[in-house]
């Protein structure tokens, strides 16, 4: 690190920054529908993503009904079951989690937290949302075409994804899925460029990179990763589309289907898996890193304590981001690739545990001797840490080749990734919504409803996914429509499956409480004021709440300190906002390296 000195007084002078020109909307349509304001775009993104999330939730109910009570619901035949699996997985991973963290939280928080008036290219930002909406509509349209949506599994592995035995394989399903993914990637690229450039080039006076809240660091790193990871999925989708539509053989080896030799040869199904997971593994961290960042800020704010090891938190984020590009083939241990690859990828996979452990220890050390307020956002943040550690530990099992081979394609895998990349990030999303809702609407979400939502969701998630590990160790395979006839499956497994299904229905239904709370509090919530959590970051210091177009009124904010000056001795309140002048405390993220 190189020392870069601050001005002689250690205080930054008044802004000498030329202000940006904003495009002001002229009509209701350009203000609320085709808006170029990042905050409106964020709400649009979040609303669409949460709606898709509800669809995907219902799909998971339908799957659970089949698994818990096989044969009772005759409309869930094998085809429908695979279609539900596929759509549930793809929707949740790409259209909900990615869109919500980057498109939703990214759009709302980045400009506010770095002290910008808006994203750097508001027009492109607006296009990003509308293209995302188009991608969602294409995806949802596949429910209504002949043959229904694709049932290839969310990983869309060829050759089965485009063969006639798979639902949607020779119909419209797979085509719509691939086109929707390509559309999503184009839309995301437009947004992602905005997020990255805004963080790099449009910060407020005094906002150095090492003073940025970790939320911004997380979203920034994830956006950058997404810009490098989505191309692989894009290329894979193009090639599979050609295989399906033009009859090329990129992924199609010599095959016999239903006794008939197919007119294909020489393709490599493994190639698709490499392309898919070169996207797919970074994707896990594209979802996880924003969650890491947000949870750091939630913990620090609600424990009234500065984040422990800020610099290491930043470097750990970057290290995880970089490492996640060289671990992808740990999803492919049983795929038939060269076994020596397994050695390399197992090693890199386990190395990721190091920066990740740094983050977990730092969260716990932030809580140590903190003034912990068990608010709803804090409850969700704490739940995240526990859940993430749980999911991470089973990741160590699956990252090792010898342990992974017997566990592959069992319910253990389902339990692992739902813990680590399903439940954990969604807990953060809920926490973040409870935390920032007051800034977005000016009103608090209802507290008792929030606590109800939290406890049922948190305990319920464990009741659902803990038993699944056990099922997996028993050898119950995943992605099976019906396991009733398997001789080795004991009756207790069926009882457990029925239990999981009932809990899943209850947890799912509880999300309606949350949705109700969102709408009810809009009108009837307690007025929040500008800074209900007494937080230091810039978005809580806006002159108006909710912030208007342009965020800051006449003068742009100036930043004097890092984001974590909590419990400051001698301060008027117990915290110092980032925009509050005064001497910086030693070690509190001054420009000095």
């Amino acid at each position, binding site marked *: 690190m*190189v020392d*870069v*000195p*601050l*001005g*002689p*007084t250690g205080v*930054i*002078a008044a802004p*000498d*920054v030329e202000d940006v*020109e904003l*495009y002001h909307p002229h009509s209701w349509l350009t203000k609320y529908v085709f808006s170029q304001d990042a905050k409106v775009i964020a709400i649009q993104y979040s609303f669409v993503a949460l709606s898709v999330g509800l669809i995907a939730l219902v799909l998971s109910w339908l799957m659970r009904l089949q698994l818990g009570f096989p044969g009772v619901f005759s409309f869930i035949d094998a085809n429908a079951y695979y279609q539900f699996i596929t759509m549930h997985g793809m929707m949740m991973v790409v259209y909900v989690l990615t869109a919500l963290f980057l498109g939703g939280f990214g759009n709302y928080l980045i400009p506010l937290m770095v002290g910008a008036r808006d994203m*750097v*290219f508001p*027009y492109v930002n607006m296009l990003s949302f509308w293209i995302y909406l188009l991608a969602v509509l294409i995806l949802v349209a596949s429910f209504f075409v002949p043959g229904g949506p694709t049932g290839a599994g969310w990983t869309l592995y060829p050759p089965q994804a485009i063969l006639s035995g798979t639902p949607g394989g020779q119909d419209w399903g797979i085509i719509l899925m691939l086109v929707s993914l390509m559309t999503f990637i184009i839309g995301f*690229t437009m947004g*992602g*460029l905005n997020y990255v*450039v805004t963080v*790099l*080039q*449009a*910060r*407020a*006076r005094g*906002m*150095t*990179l*090492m003073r940025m809240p970790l939320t911004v660091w997380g979203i920034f790193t994830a956006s*950058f990763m997404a*810009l*490098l990871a*989505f*191309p*692989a999925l*894009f*290329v*894979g989708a*193009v*090639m599979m589309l*050609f295989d399906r539509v*033009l*009859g*090329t*053989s*990129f992924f199609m080896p*010599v095959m016999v289907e239903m006794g008939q030799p197919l*007119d294909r*040869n*020489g*393709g*490599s199904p493994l*190639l698709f898996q*490499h*392309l898919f997971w*070169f996207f797919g593994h970074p994707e896990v961290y594209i979802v996880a890193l924003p969650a890491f960042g947000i949870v750091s800020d939630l913990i620090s704010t609600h424990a009234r304590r500065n984040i422990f090891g800020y610099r290491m938190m930043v470097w750990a984020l970057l290290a995880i981001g970089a490492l996640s590009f060289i671990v992808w083939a740990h999803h492919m241990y049983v795929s038939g690739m060269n076994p020596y690859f397994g050695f390399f990828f197992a090693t890199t996979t386990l190395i990721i545990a190091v920066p990740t452990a740094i983050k977990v220890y730092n969260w716990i050390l932030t809580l140590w001797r903190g003034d912990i307020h068990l608010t709803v956002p804090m409850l969700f943040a704490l739940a995240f840490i526990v859940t993430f550690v749980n999911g991470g530990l089973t990741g160590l099992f699956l990252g090792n080749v010898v342990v992974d081979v017997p566990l592959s394609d069992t319910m253990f895998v389902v339990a692992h990734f739902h813990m680590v990349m399903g439940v954990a990030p969604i807990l953060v999303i809920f926490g973040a919504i409870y935390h920032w809702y007051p800034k977005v609407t000016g009103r608090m979400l209802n507290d008792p409803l929030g606590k109800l939502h939290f406890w049922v969701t948190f305990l319920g998630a464990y009741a659902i996914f803990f038993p699944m590990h056990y099922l997996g160790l028993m050898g119950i395979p995943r992605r099976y429509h019906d396991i009733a006839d398997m001789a080795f499956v004991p009756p207790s497994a069926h009882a457990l499956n029925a239990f999981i299904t009932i809990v899943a229905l209850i947890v799912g239904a509880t999300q309606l409480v949350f949705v109700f709370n969102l709408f009810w509090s809009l009108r009837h919530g307690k007025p929040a004021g500008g800074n209900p959590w007494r937080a230091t970051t810039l978005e809580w210091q806006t002159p108006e709440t909710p912030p208007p177009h342009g965020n800051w009124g006449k003068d742009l904010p100036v*930043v004097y300190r890092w984001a974590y000056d909590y419990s400051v001795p001698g301060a008027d309140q117990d915290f110092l906002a980032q925009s509050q002048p005064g001497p910086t405390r030693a070690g509190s993220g001054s*420009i000095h*390296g």
Partner: protein
Amino acid sequence: MTEQAFTEGTTGTHIEASGLRSLAADFSSDRQAFRSISWGKAMMWIFLLSDTFVFSCFLISYMTARMSTTVAWPNASEVFALTIGGTSLPLILIAIMTFVLISSSGTMAMAVNFAYRRDRRKTAVLMLVTALLGATFVGMQAFEWTKLIHEGVRPWSNPWGAAQFGSTFFMITGFHGTHVSFGVLFLLIVARKVWRGDYDQERRGFFTSRRGNYEAVEIMGLYWHFVDLVWVFIFAFFYLW
């Protein structure tokens, strides 16, 4: 970037730095990580990085397909030969295409130069020449496609060997050709704006309602040089291998 100095507020602290120190100074400064880079340029650079990954994935997939296919790969110098005046010249068309595209990078660089000097007419004319050369490239590519299709090359098969030859050829050159075509389109749009004096009068854009400036020419140039550079790789890996 090496010329960049770190300035802190109006206090006058001004530290000349070079090399790694300058990089660190840039990254530890407030407001902008890259002091002399505008938003538009930064966005184009990062977009090109992302696009590099797209083309890399295409080319690596092509190499994988070529290595894993069970049938022999067609001989590029025979397939891409043109018979002119009775003699068969290997790779002649592709040589001309490459020459045209690289020349267009030259005219683009000159256009950027004149844009810096606010020379409206020369900039616009050079951009039009660039667009013309780009369109010529796409035209010759269309000719090449037509010739191959007449000879029986299809995405799913060809007369000489591995089916993946046609698949990857049409996919990769098609994807690159699309990039060039979009480049030509945007060159024409920017050239029109330059010619009309939009950047001198700070006229607002039709879609975005924002004022542009001459930097648009340079950003356009970044894209154009990138498309050109990608072609060099496609040329090397597809035609020369």
